[in-house]
C-alpha cells in the first residue's frame, strides 16, 4: 500500500457483563447450557412480558465508565432498536441510544515505535452503553438444522456493554493494543470475563484512509464480528489494502459493512450503506429512565479496584522493579495477583519476579494460556525457589522441572526425588568425587598450578559429569579451589 495514507480506526467493543442473571429478566446467564434452557418468558418475548433492569449490570456499567474516565450520566434512557430476525425474540433489541449511561472518556494504550521504543497514547472513548444480546441462529446441517435454521435463545437478553472509541487509532497494531488494554482493564475491574472464545468480548471496527494531512476523514467502512485479536489485525490490514487499492486507482471508497475471511485474508462487502436498515429507535415505554444520584456513582468509585496504571506505579515502587518488568507483571490482573501472592509466600520480591518474568511468562506464551489454566500456585513457586536456595536442587534442574510442575502441580520435593534430580549435598561423596577427578587429571592440575586458571572449569565439568549434574556448581567450584590451593601449598 502507498505509505502516504493516514489510517483512521475506531473500534466498537461489546463485552458481556459478569452478572448472574440477564439484563432484563431473572433467567440465569450460563455458558454452555443445552439450547433454549437458560430462558424465561421474557427472553422468549412471549405476549405480555415486561423487562426489569438488572441493578448489578448498572453497577458494572458505572464501574467500567469510571475506569475509562468517562462522564457518568445520572439519567440515561433505554431505547428499542427495531428489526426483524429470528434470533431477536421481541422484534427489537433494548439498547441505549440518545442518552447512554456514560460518554467522553479515554483509555491509555502502549505502542511501540519503529525504533522499538514504548510510547503511551490516549484513545478517546466516545460512549459506553448497556444493551441486551440477541440469541444465536444455527444454519448448520451438522447441528441438526437440516435445510432450515435453528434458534438458541440462551444468549438472548445477556447483558452487554458497548464501548465505542473515538477514531483515534492509527494502525492495526494500535487497534490490537487498544483491545488488549481494554480487555485487561475489564478483567481488572471484574466487570467481564471478556473471554473471546465464549463470545464475551466482540469487536467491530470502523476504518478509513485519508491522504496524510488531509483535513477531512475519508469514507469509512465497518468490519463486523472480529472475534480474536489476530482476526482484528488481519482484517484491518486486508481492509487497508483494499481501500488503498481503490484510492490508488483514483476510485472512491463506498460506505459499506464488510466481513473478513481469514482463509483468503480478504474483506468482503456484506451490504452498502444505502441499503442500511432504519432501526426506528425510540425510548422503550416499558422501562422508566435509569436515574441514580451522584452518591451512587461515588460509592461505585470508592469500591473501584486498583487500575492497571496505578498498579504499575505501585509495583515499581513497592517491589523495586524496573518499569519494564513491572509492566510485564501487571499486564493482566491474574498475573499481578499471582506475583503478589507469591511474594507473600516467599518473602522477597526479586527471585519471585525473576521466576515469573523468565520461566512462567515463557510457558504462558508457549502454551498461549492464562495463568488460571495452570496448576501452579504461589505456594508451589515459593517452595521451588526455597529448594534451590537450600541447595536441594540446582537452579538448572529446577528450571527444567518448572513447566511440568506448573502444569500438573504436586509437591516439587517429591518430583525432584522421583526424577533423581536431588542435588548432591552429601559432602563425603562430593569430596571423594573431587579427589577422584584431581587424581585422574594430573596434567590439568599441573597446568592449573602453573597459572592456567581456566582449567578449574574443566575440572568442575568433570565433577558435574560424575555427579550427573546434581551437584551445586558453586559448591563444586569452592571445593575444587580449596583442594587445589592445598595441593599448590603442599607441593614444593
Amino acid at each position, binding site marked *: 500500500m502507498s505509505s502516504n495514507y493516514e489510517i483512521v480506526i475506531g473500534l466498537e467493543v461489546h463485552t458481556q457483563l459478569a452478572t448472574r442473571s440477564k439484563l432484563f429478566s431473572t433467567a440465569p446467564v450460563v455458558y454452555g447450557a443445552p439450547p433454549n434452557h437458560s430462558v424465561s418468558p421474557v427472553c*422468549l418475548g*412471549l*405476549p*405480555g412480558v415486561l423487562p426489569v433492569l438488572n441493578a448489578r449490570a448498572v453497577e458494572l456499567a458505572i464501574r467500567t465508565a469510571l475506569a475509562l474516565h468517562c462522564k457518568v450520566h445520572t439519567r440515561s434512557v433505554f431505547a428499542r432498536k*427495531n428489526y426483524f430476525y429470528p434470533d431477536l425474540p*421481541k422484534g427489537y433489541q433494548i439498547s441505549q441510544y440518545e442518552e447512554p449511561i456514560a460518554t467522553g472518556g479515554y483509555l491509555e494504550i502502549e505502542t511501540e515505535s519503529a525504533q522499538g521504543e514504548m510510547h503511551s497514547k490516549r484513545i478517546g472513548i466516545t460512549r459506553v452503553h448497556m444493551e441486551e444480546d440477541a440469541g444465536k441462529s444455527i444454519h448448520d446441517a451438522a447441528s441438526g438444522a437440516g435445510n432450515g435454521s435453528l434458534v438458541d435463545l440462551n444468549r438472548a437478553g445477556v447483558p452487554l456493554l458497548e464501548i465505542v472509541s473515538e477514531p483515534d487509532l492509527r494502525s492495526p497494531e494500535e487497534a490490537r493494543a487498544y483491545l488488549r488494554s481494554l480487555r485487561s482493564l475489564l478483567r481488572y475491574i471484574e466487570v467481564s470475563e471478556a473471554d473471546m472464545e465464549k463470545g464475551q468480548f466482540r469487536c467491530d471496527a470502523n476504518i478509513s484512509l485519508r491522504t496524510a494531512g488531509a483535513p477531512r476523514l475519508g469514507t469509512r467502512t465497518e468490519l463486523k464480528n472480529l472475534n480474536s485479536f489476530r482476526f482484528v489485525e488481519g482484517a484491518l490490514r486486508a481492509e487497508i489494502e483494499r481501500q488503498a487499492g481503490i484510492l490508488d486507482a483514483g476510485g472512491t471508497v463506498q460506505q459499506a459493512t464488510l466481513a473478513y475471511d481469514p482463509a483468503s485474508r480478504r474483506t468482503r462487502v456484506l451490504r452498502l450503506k444505502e441499503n442500511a436498515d*432504519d432501526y426506528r429507535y425510540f425510548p422503550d*415505554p416499558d422501562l422508566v429512565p435509569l436515574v441514580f444520584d451522584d452518591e451512587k456513582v461515588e460509592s461505585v468509585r470508592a469500591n473501584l479496584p486498583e487500575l492497571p496504571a496505578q498498579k504499575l506505579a505501585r509495583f515499581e515502587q513497592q517491589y523495586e522493579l524496573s518499569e519494564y518488568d513491572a509492566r510485564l507483571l501487571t499486564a493482566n490482573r491474574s498475573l499481578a495477583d499471582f506475583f503478589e501472592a507469591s511474594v507473600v509466600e516467599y518473602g522477597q520480591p526479586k527471585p519471585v519476579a525473576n521466576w515469573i518474568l523468565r520461566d512462567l511468562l515463557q510457558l504462558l506464551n508457549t502454551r498461549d494460556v492464562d495463568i488460571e489454566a495452570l496448576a501452579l500456585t504461589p505456594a508451589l513457586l515459593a517452595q521451588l525457589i526455597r529448594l534451590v536456595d537450600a541447595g536441594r536442587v540446582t537452579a538448572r534442574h529446577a528450571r527444567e522441572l518448572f513447566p511440568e510442575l506448573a502444569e500438573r502441580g504436586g509437591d516439587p520435593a517429591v518430583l525432584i526425588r522421583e526424577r533423581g534430580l536431588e542435588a548432591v549435598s552429601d559432602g563425603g561423596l562430593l569430596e571423594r568425587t573431587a579427589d577422584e577427578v584431581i587424581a585422574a587429571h594430573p596434567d590439568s592440575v599441573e597446568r592449573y598450578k602453573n597459572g592456567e586458571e581456566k582449567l578449574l572449569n574443566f575440572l568442575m565439568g568433570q565433577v558435574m559429569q560424575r555427579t550427573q549434574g546434581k551437584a551445586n556448581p558453586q559448591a563444586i567450584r569452592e571445593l575444587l579451589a580449596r583442594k587445589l590451593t592445598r595441593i599448590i601449598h603442599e607441593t614444593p
Partner: protein
Amino acid sequence: MVERLGTLRELRDALAARAISSQQLVAQALERAVAGKSLHHYVGLRSKAALAEAAATDARRASGAARSPLDGVPIAIKDNMVQRGEATTCASRILEGFVSPYDSGVVEKLAAAGLIVIGRTNMDEFAMGSSTEHSIYGSAHNPWDLERTPGGSSGGSAGAVAFGSVPAALGSDTGGSIRQPAACCGVVGLKPTYGRVSRWGLVAFASSLDQIGPLARTTEDCALLLQVIAGHDRRDSTSLPEPVPDYTAALTGDVSDLVIGIPVEYFNAEGVDPEVLRCVRTAVVELEKAGAKTREVSLPHLRYAIATYYLLATAEASSNLARYDGVRYGRRAQDVRDLHELYRKTRSEGFGAEVKRRILLGTFVLSSGYYDAYYRKAQQVRTLLRRDFEEAFRSCNIIATPTAPEVAFRLGEKSDDPLTMYLSDVYTVSVNLAGIPGISLPCGFAHGMPVGLQLLGRALEEAVLLRTADAYQRRSDWHTRTPPEVA
C-alpha cells in the same frame, strides 16, 4: 333463560350468608354466558376449570378459610390478559394456538382473592378499535340493542356485565377501551392511574398508555374489584409503589368538599350529540345538589389529543407487535421459501386490517426523517397536555365530561371510516396521555341507548373519583336499569 347475576356486593353477601354456593354461582354464570352466545361476548369459557375451582372455593369457605370476601365470585377477563394453561389470542388470528405458560399479575391477584375466571371476553384485535367489530370471533353485540356495537375495545367485558353473565369483568384501556364500552353498555368502567395495576401479562398495545381496570354495574363493585387488582408489581417497571388505600371505605356519599371542573373545550367539541350533552349536564347538576361545587376549567391543548394519541399509540404498537413473526409461537404461514416470505405471509395472514393500518402508521411515525416531526413532537405535546390537567386540577378535584360524543353506533356503521372511528375517542384519549384515572358511569339515555358520564381525577386519587361516582349513583338509578332480555 337463566337469571342475570347480581352485583359483586350482592354475591359477596349471599356467599357470606351461605345463601348460595360458589358452584351454583359459577354454573349460573356459565349457563347465562352460553345462553347469550350469539352476542359474542366471550371468546372462550373455562367451564370445567371454573366449576372445579368453585368446588374448591366452597370447601375453603366451609372450613372457614375463604381467601377474601369475594372468594368464589365468578368474573370474566379480556382476551389480552394471559392465564397459565389458557389460550390468549387478543382476538387475532396471529396468536392462534398460543397457550400461555404463565399468569398475568391480575390473574394472580384474582386467584389470591378467590375470584373465579369463567371465561375470556371478546375485544377488538389487539385492543385496537372502539366497537369490538375487529375480532376473529365476530362482532360483539350490545345487549341494549343487538344491532349496535357494545363499544370497544373491551366490548366483550362491558357486554357481559350488561347482559349479566358476570357481575364484573376486567378490561384494558389504552385510549378509552374500558370507559367507552362501559358508556355504550350502561355499566361502570374505571381506568386507574397509569401504573396502579400491573401490566405484567397484559398483551401490550401501547405500553405507555395501557392500563387494566374493572367493569361492573356499580361504582361500589368497581371499588371492590380495584381493591383486589391494584398494587405494586416488581415485574412491571412502570408499576407505582404507593400503598393502595381502602377504596370502599372512601365511599361516604359526601361530595361537599369537592370542586368539579367543567372543561369548556370538552363541552364545545364538534360532533357531540346534544342529547348526550344534556344527560351529562343534568348529571353534573345532580352532583351540585349533592353538595359539590362546579367551576369551568380549561385544557388548551386538548384539540391535539387525538393526533398525539394516534401518533404515540401506533408508534408503540408497531414495535410491540413485531414479536408476532411466526417463529416461536402462534400462527406460522405455510409454504414459504425464505425468511422474508415467512414474515410477510405470517403477518399478512395473521393481522386484521385495523391492526395493519396502525402498524404501518406507527412504523412511519418512527422512521428516520419523520421521527422528530411526529414522534418527538407528539411526546412534547403529551407533556403539555399533562400540564394542562395538572393546572386544571389546581382548582378542582374532579373533571366531568361525556365519555363519548355519541351513544353506541350501529354495527358496520363506521367500519369503512377509520377516521370517524378515531374521532369518537375524543373524550377519552387525553386521559391516557396524562396517565390520570377516569371512570365512566351511566347518566341517562339518549335515543334509547345508555349515555356515559366521565369523571376524571388526579393521579392516584381513585378514591376521590370513586366517591364522586358513588355519590351520583346514590342519587340516581340509571345503573339499576337492565337491558331487555334477549328472546
